[in-house]
């Protein structure tokens, strides 16, 4: 696995997405979203329910074709699902009939990776997310946190330059979630993958992000792009509380402004 990827720059230019429904007005999910995310940057996306955060992530992942605008990865247009982009969904979405190792290796199977290389990569990925002992277990035997770890390892299987996380920790309890955030940062410290993460949690957005992007309620527009002025590496205890609370106030102000 490459230690540091030199690529992974995402650019959104005037992205608009509308869902057409029979006999009703089109639902505008995203309206002219422009955003640049640099190599190895971590960006948190936050916003009210139904603001199109997931839609934005799906558009970046090439799962949705925008009605207007474009998504570029390292100056190349994204026109469909791309191996350079790894996706972690809100639910683990593991194949119940495969073992944990089989799930983590699934993208490699689809890509036609040789069995030997696949097994080496899977072992490496499992150790990175601390699931080596669970390699032979079925998803049903795992806790929610372990399942999401497996999903994260799977998203890293093709060595993506960009990792998209769609509220990956929302179903986890607070303690697991905090530990997960720390682990994600450790992982990022080694891989330096660009990360765009949707979250509902202001503390999580601040703890992880270099920037926090605040989206408005439908139609989703960017209402604020707030830098997080905290040095890395970050730890749960070592954060500058003044900076955290000032950033949180700023995020909250923009969220409230939108709600008003």
């Amino acid at each position, binding site marked *: 696995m490459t230690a540091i990827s030199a690529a992974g720059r995402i650019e959104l230019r005037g992205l608009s997405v509308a869902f057409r429904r029979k006999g009703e007005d089109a639902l505008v999910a995203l309206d002219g979203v422009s955003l640049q995310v640099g190599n190895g940057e971590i960006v948190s996306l936050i916003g009210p329910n139904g603001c199109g955060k997931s839609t934005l992530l799906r558009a970046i992942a*090439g799962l949705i074709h925008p009605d207007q605008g474009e998504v570029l990865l390292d100056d190349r247009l994204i026109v469909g699902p791309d191996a350079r982009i790894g996706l972690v*969904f809100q639910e683990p*979405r593991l194949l119940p*009939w495969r073992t944990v190792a089989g799930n983590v290796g699934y993208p490699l199977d*689809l890509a036609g990776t040789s069995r030997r290389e696949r097994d080496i990569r899977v072992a490496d990925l499992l150790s990175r997310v601390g699931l080596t002992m669970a390699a032979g277990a079925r998803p049903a035997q795992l806790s929610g946190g372990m399942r999401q770890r497996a999903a994260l390892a799977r998203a890293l299987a093709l060595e993506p330059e960009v990792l998209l996380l769609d509220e990956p920790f929302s179903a986890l309890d607070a303690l697991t979630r905090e530990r997960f955030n720390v682990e994600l940062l450790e992982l990022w410290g080694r891989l330096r993958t660009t990360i765009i993460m949707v979250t509902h949690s202001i503390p999580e957005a601040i703890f992880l992000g270099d920037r926090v992007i605040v989206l408005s309620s439908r139609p989703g527009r960017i209402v604020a792009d707030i830098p997080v002025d905290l040095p890395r590496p970050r730890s749960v205890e070592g954060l500058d509380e003044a900076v955290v609370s000032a950033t949180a106030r700023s995020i909250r102000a923009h969220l409230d402004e939108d709600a008003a």
Partner: protein
Amino acid sequence: MRSSAVLTVACAAAFVLLWKAVVVVGGYPAFILPAPESVFARFVTAWADGRMAPHAVATLLEITLGFLIGGALGLVAGYALGKSALVARLISPYLVAAQATPILALAPVLALWFGPGLLGKVVIAALIVFFPIAVSAMVGIRSVDAGLLELGRSLRASPLQVLLTLEIPAALPSIFGGLRIGITLAVVGAVVGEWAGAERGLGVLVNIARGSLFDIPLMFATLATIALIGVALYLAVVLVERRLVRR
């Protein structure tokens, strides 16, 4: 496991005892309901003197071919029905109509078309097997989680990869439900087909035993053979299911 084996044997013994009790208490003559031991004795001699085997082989061949052909067509049709709402709307009425028409009523027509040989029975067995397997495949294919399909799309899985790694594994439990029903129906189809006209087969032997031979123990021994074939094939399907379906 051991206690369930004991229960299985006990249950079989209870069945035979009940049968014997009905014969004794009811005082039925052998041409109405022969006693289990005389059926068993006739079963052994019919196999030993080579009377049963050619008929059993013929019926087994009809069942197997009918199940394989009807099952394969059912799986393909079920996939199409599950994937396309249009196909489902256009084709379903004919499938249901064909299934709702009693196979006993269809059998003479099919015998007329396909003759008294192997083909006619295979067609009847395949026809009766087709429906439950098509329906179970359709239900199974539709049961694939939309999230998993999106995952497959995000990983750029080809349609064939989606079929092999997502749709078939997700549909297997449902498909095996259909296969279990299908294999028992294949037995019914083959025997009914033989009744409608055949030179050989267990259905034919039942008729001969009841008619020209008037050998009622042989008739029951033949019925037992049919039942045993059904049970054995059903168990074979269950064994394949255990190997393929991980729960």
